[in-house]
């Protein structure tokens, strides 16, 4: 049972770390703010969920497990709001938006 928990937890944590790594690489490979947000902000929320789930397998008492679940919930609530605000400010203030992406209709 201990070995099983170790293996499953490690798989979750390493998957999360892999996604974190890819998100960091993507941050440098894309050129424009709105394209960067896609990898920077969103891959992070899934990776954080994976790492939290992986850590849950390593804790024995219920206290830390519930705390990790609460952490994951708050990350999932705050992360989209933060990236949404960054993108909103960018769209409202950039005058040369047409150069970077096709705009069908603006708010």
């Amino acid at each position, binding site marked *: 049972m201990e070995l099983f928990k170790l293996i499953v937890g490690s798989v979750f944590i390493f998957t999360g770390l892999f996604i974190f790594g890819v998100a960091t690489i993507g941050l440098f*490979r894309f050129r424009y703010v709105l*394209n960067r947000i896609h990898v920077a902000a*969103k891959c992070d929320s899934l990776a954080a969920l994976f790492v939290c789930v992986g850590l849950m397998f390593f804790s024995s008492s219920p206290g830390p497990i519930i705390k990790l679940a609460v952490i994951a919930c708050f990350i999932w609530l705050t*992360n989209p709001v933060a*990236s*949404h605000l960054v993108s909103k400010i960018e*769209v409202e203030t950039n005058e040369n938006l047409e150069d970077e992406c096709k705009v069908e209709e*603006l708010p």
Partner: protein
Amino acid sequence: MPILLFLLWLVFNERITADVIITGVIAVLILTWFLSRFGGWSLKRDGQFAARIPAFIGFVINLIIEMCIANIHMIALVLSDKPNESIRPAIVKHKTPLKTSVGRVALANSITLTPGTITVDVGDNCVYVHAIDERARKSLENSSLENKLINMEKGL
């Protein structure tokens, strides 16, 4: 809601003693008064939300599955040879039949959580979405998440 807040307080403390419980009850009472005065909280609204918990759990599971699929696509895009040339970003207007503000906020947040699409702004009957390529735009048009939200919104 007061019970949820109290449980959160107990989880943060990790022990049940008299002083923790007394402080928690006082803080929860103050917060409940504040929410009912400024946050539009009422017992009726709590009941409406509580009745939707099973549907909401299904929604979250669906969201996690969609996120994993879209994330694999995103990873392939980042690790491809020329990421800047292969994407075609665009801002599109997506019409939504969701009426309540809670439903629209949930839709906007789930769109932003899915890699490949970001909500730029939320209007009265539409959301403006920045999509990174064609595939993300297609997934926006026929997503099962919106149908689930429409079902959950009925009677709210």
